[in-house]
């Protein structure tokens, strides 16, 4: 599939990229985080990570290079890094940790590597806030999320944790990368109000599932699920720590040809918006996959909406199109056991029917509110 031929035209290159996009196997791959690029002034050397084959391809984009080097200078090196979720345990990919370790101190530079994540807050904070406010009858002005307990999984440097804390919620941020938590801890220590409302811990989700079962009003996993090894276990754990009727917020990247072309090739290798090696296309999650796993765990998906990043303006926008980035909101069913479901005893479908029967009254209750 991946030949070692040097390509003459960019057109041919794109065809090749789009073609074998779906054919990469999920074979066990060497844990070599290849965030390597040649700092050659005349060309970009692209290193595509084929799963099994260790071949490289050099593509020359002189004209694109000048445009985007200007963009990079203008934007003062915006290299946003998606949140890394790692360090150990079943869902953590230790290979991803190394990529993020190097950038652990850069979280709070708003014009730096993580700039797109900072500007994504303009979308995800209102998304979380408005959906949670629907469940609060009378909210206090100035502290709309007062009384809510939120878990931010894969919080990184606390980019999303702090705004939620400012809105009055008590937030626990967890991240397996020790350096990230140190940065986050240090940053919040300067603000006395946030210091009290936010707590950070170095751990993975599985480690705290038992002690925090059914304690959170909301769980936020933003830019995380595309980095975990075992998505099903991860989402199961998210469901376990949620109170019945609690909300799960996920933002991630769709697994499409467009997301490969724009999200990996363009963002990482051409324009340098994302550091190379941050994302692996195979781990991207489509909304359909996500929905099916969520539903099977007793979470009913309320909203799925697309997000679009404009690299020229640096702002995100909501979009009908979910083929790149998207945000999802799911609610854990309130009632675990429904009396009428006992009558429907069908082999192999009992759980699913129970889940369905439970989510329907749950949705009704949501609508009533």
């Amino acid at each position, binding site marked *: 599939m991946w030949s070692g031929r040097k390509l003459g035209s960019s057109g041919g290159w794109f065809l090749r990229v789009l073609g074998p996009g779906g054919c990469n196997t999920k074979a066990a791959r060497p844990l070599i985080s290849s965030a390597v690029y040649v700092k050659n002034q005349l060309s970009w050397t692209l290193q595509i990570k084929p799963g099994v084959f260790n071949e490289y391809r050099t593509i020359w984009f002189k004209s694109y290079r000048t445009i985007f080097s200007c963009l990079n200078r203008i*934007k003062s090196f915006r290299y946003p890094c998606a949140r890394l979720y790692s360090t150990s345990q079943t869902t953590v990919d230790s290979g991803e940790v190394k990529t993020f370790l190097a950038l652990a101190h850069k979280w709070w530079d708003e014009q730096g590597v993580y700039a797109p994540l900072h500007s994504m807050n303009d979308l995800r904070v209102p998304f979380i806030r408005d959906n949670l406010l629907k469940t609060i009858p009378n909210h206090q002005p*100035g502290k709309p999320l007062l009384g809510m307990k939120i878990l931010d999984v894969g919080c990184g440097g606390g980019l999303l944790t702090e705004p939620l804390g400012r809105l*009055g919620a008590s937030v626990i941020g967890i991240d397996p990368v020790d350096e990230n938590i140190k940065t986050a801890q*240090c940053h919040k220590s*300067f603000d006395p109000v946030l210091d009290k409302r936010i707590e950070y811990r170095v751990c993975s989700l599985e480690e705290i599932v038992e002690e925090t079962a059914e304690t959170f009003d909301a769980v936020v996993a933003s830019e995380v699920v595309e980095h975990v090894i075992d998505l099903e276990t991860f989402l199961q754990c998210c469901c376990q720590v949620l109170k019945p009727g609690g909300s799960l917020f996920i933002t991630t990247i769709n697994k499409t040809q467009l997301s490969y072309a724009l999200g990996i090739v363009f963002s990482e290798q051409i324009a340098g918006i994302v550091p190379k090696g941050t994302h692996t296309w195979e781990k991207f999650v489509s909304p359909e996959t996500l929905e099916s796993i969520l539903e099977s765990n007793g979470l009913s998906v309320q909203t799925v909406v697309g997000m679009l990043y404009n690299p020229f303006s640096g702002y995100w926008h909501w979009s009908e199109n979910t083929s790149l980035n998207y945000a999802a909101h799911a609610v854990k069913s309130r009632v675990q056991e429904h009396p009428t479901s006992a009558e429907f005893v069908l082999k192999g479908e009992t759980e699913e029917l129970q889940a369905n029967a439970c989510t329907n009254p749950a949705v009704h209750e949501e609508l009533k509110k």
Partner: protein
Amino acid sequence: MAARLVSRCGAVRAAPHSGPLASCRRWSGASTDTVYDVVVSGGGLVGAAMACALGYDIHFHDKKILLLEAGPKKVLEKLSETYSNRVSSISPGSATLLSSFGAWDHICNMRYRAFRRMQVWDACSEALIMFDKDNLDDMGYIVENDVIMHALTKQLEAVSDRVTVLYRSKAIRYTWPCPFPMADSSPWVHITLGDGSTFQTKLLIGADGHNSGVRQAVGIQNVSWNYDQSAVVATLHLSEATENNVAWQRFLPSGPIALLPLSDTLSSLVWSTSHEHAAELVTMDEEKFVDAVNSAFWSDADHTDFIDTAGAMLQYAVSLLKPTKVSARQLPPSVARVDAKSRVLFPLGLGHAAEYVRPRVALIGDAAHRVHPLAGQGVNMGFGDISSLAHHLSTAAFNGKDLGSMSHLTGYETERQRHNTALLAATDLLKRLYSTSASPLVLLRTWGLQATNAVSPLKEQIMAFASK
């Protein structure tokens, strides 16, 4: 967006440095200073109104705001019989802002004067322009500055749990955070007062007038020049009581003279003229002064036949095209007396800050822009800045954002710079255009004024822009 691109093209807009390395001090660990969310430096009309707007904002209910005022607290137990000589023309937009936090009610209970028409005319020709709203709604309000200040102070006292006001406090040093986030250095702005006390803040708003200390400390370039004019203000008694709801302004070659209604028998004078003439006016005895004022409004000494004929020609052409008769020039009420000790002069100039914002700093009011009083827009531009900045900060607070973040501060800057630059340029152009009695320019402005007066939609546009 273009402005943003331009600003990014240079370099990352670095945090300001006030001198050598002392500015980037590292504060290891959390300091014990109080951390305020917003500190407003300067407690004048614009600074106090900004503190009020934030104090009454619904999304700022758990935030801490500090207002620093260098002067003493002005307590107004009883409204004095005599009117103050410093008045401001408040546009409807500014009145809306003041009523949004309840200050306008206090002003209504004290005193103000609404005016419904404005006549602006030339000394060198018959050309005039008359502004009024179709249904004779209030075009604007003349309010004494002391009355506005008192209303603001009362409203600030009502939200003292959120807004702390420190009088006789002047910041002597600002310490800016490092441009790059450092692990152990405080990200806030540190302010040191004259008495040694220190605070930290997430956002510093500079509302300290046209010689802004905040603007200088931050290092923002200020484009400014002094006009060769000073303004003389006084409180005048009219010869006879009239309805007095018209604002009058005449452009003399030496500068515009304006009469603003205060009550049925009183009006406020704002006469911009050369420094020497202004000094003369302030020191001459009262009778001579009153004569000077009356003749400035009535005398047609600067008229020339050439201009008069040319003006009449255009007027005839306009009357052919437009069936409705344009009202003839009216004369302002005559002045009988001037209040003793009410004559004061102050110099005039233009100023505009190249940037309104830096990380964790924003400028509003005269600190950002200074304008000639001929259009009555100075404080209104400041109130417009407050509306815009308060709106951006409110949205940011509701989104849980760091208040000093450039992302929403640049939104405020773009919005206001667009409006203010246009108004500043127009005012400066008018000032220069009307400062001469050279025939070609007089002819140009005569015809221009007559044409503008004839085109109602254009007049409405001008009124709408000025009353925002």
